[in-house]
């Protein structure tokens, strides 16, 4: 049990972001999160929820209530392995996995995420990896990940590395597509665009607004 760090559980309205919910809801079918009845099926289905700081159900509640900082800063969204078991069993068809993604992207964009937590680091590395060469060089990725988070872990993994090496399943060679320039031009266009809002969503927001 962690020692008591004098944290304050109460949240004042002034600390909440009322726009947060609609921001997340603006992904395709995101509006469904508003019909959540807090039944907890998602958390129950989720194989990882036991290790999350907030259960998936709580994340939805927090999104609705505008607990932006808490959601974006949480480990939950990053721990999600996107196995989609929550999404397929949700009685209200809430695409929770996609909502987790939306939260992750927002967290990255706004720089609010557990900094030394390996998962966002991996994501970033993977991203750079692919942006550069169009493919992911697994060997290098793992290497970078450990260097960035926990170099010591690297040694623990050497035996595994060797085993893989011997079986020709591991290399530090840089994988790449041929026409990288083409790829770069393509991705550059999308630099600015973060989240595409669906038409019906725009309509919905307009109605809510008025």
């Amino acid at each position, binding site marked *: 049990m962690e020692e008591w760090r004098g944290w304050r559980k109460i949240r004042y309205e002034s600390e909440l972001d009322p726009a947060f919910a609609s921001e997340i809801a603006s992904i*395709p079918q995101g509006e469904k999160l508003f019909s959540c009845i807090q039944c907890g099926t998602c958390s129950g289905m989720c*194989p*990882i929820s036991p*290790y999350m700081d907030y259960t998936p159900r709580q994340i939805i509640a927090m999104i609705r209530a505008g607990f932006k900082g808490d959601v974006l800063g949480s480990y939950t969204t*990053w*721990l999600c*392995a*996107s*196995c*989609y*078991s929550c*999404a*397929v069993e949700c009685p209200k068809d809430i695409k929770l996995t996609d909502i987790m*993604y939306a939260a*992750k*992207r927002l967290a*990255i964009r706004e720089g609010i995420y557990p900094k030394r937590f*390996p*998962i*966002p680091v*991996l*994501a970033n590395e*993977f*991203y750079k990896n*692919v942006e550069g060469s*169009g*493919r*992911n*060089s*697994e*060997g290098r990725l*793992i290497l970078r*990940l450990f260097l960035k988070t926990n170099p010591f872990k690297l040694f623990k993994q050497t*035996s*595994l590395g060797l*085993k*893989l090496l011997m*079986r*020709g*399943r*591991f*290399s530090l060679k840089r*994988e790449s*597509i*041929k*026409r990288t320039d*083409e*790829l770069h*031009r*393509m*991705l550059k*266009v*999308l630099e600015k*665009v*973060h*989240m*595409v*809002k*669906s*038409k019906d969503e725009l309509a919905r927001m307009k109605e809510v607004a008025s």
Partner: protein
Amino acid sequence: MNYAYYPGCSLKSTGRAYEESMLSVFEALEIPIEELSDWNCCGATAYMSISELKAFALSARNFALAEQQFKGSNDVNLVVPCAACYLGLNKARRYLAEHLEIKETVDGALKQAGLHYSGHVHIRHPLDVLLNDIGLEKITAAVKKPLTGLRVACYYGCQIVRPYAEFDNQHEPQSMDKILTALGAEVIEWPLKTRCCGGSLTGTVQEVGLRLSYILLKEAKKRGCDVVATACPLCQFNLECYQSEMLKSYGEVINVPVAYFTQLIGVGLGLSSKNLGLNRLFTPLKMPHPVKAVQGGQRVHS
């Protein structure tokens, strides 16, 4: 029907055995298949957590290339063995089809690369192709060394049946069971067929990832399987390569071979272990001896 093959990054490194075995099986069954040239990362999971739109664009490039390379046929069947890629590409395909606004943005990006995607690509998993295009008869007929007596735990993992149950039942997938049964294997009944193996967590937050894989193997072993059959490079990696770690963490010897379903098919078709990349397995695949040859590989199910 001819197939385009999308390997994805893993099948070129940790999952090489998957590629080798699948291609040899396709060859043995005379299924024409050709690798997509200059394919790029599908933009799955990790990438999607940074930019969904770019992820879609990455997939779209692959689609565009596929349409280019297979101009002849108006519909391209893109065979995607890796579960993550399968879902990533499938998701992109759907979003591009269902959300005009996304399609438009992505089209714009493709144009920059002088590419165009007109929506004629189908994402197919080898399980789907083998069961629904080729069919059990053809497979059964080709069996040389039936897997008689081999008790297999079919493990589908999450991403080939969820969220889009395209070719199999989301809750009780059967495709792999059917195929391996047809090869004479005995598939065991177990409830964790589609429970997550931990995905990339084994690499990032090991204590969690390890636990998830351990739960699967523990249950599979308890139900007395000789081998766990997988359909995803990451699942295979997690379940196989961390068994020594599990011993350390949970003091339990697992020692269960974890093979790709394509490798098992290959064995049944009597292909050489080299062509199936069996030599790449950590725990060698032991066949129950002696393997009785049975006509057509069919075997009364017990």
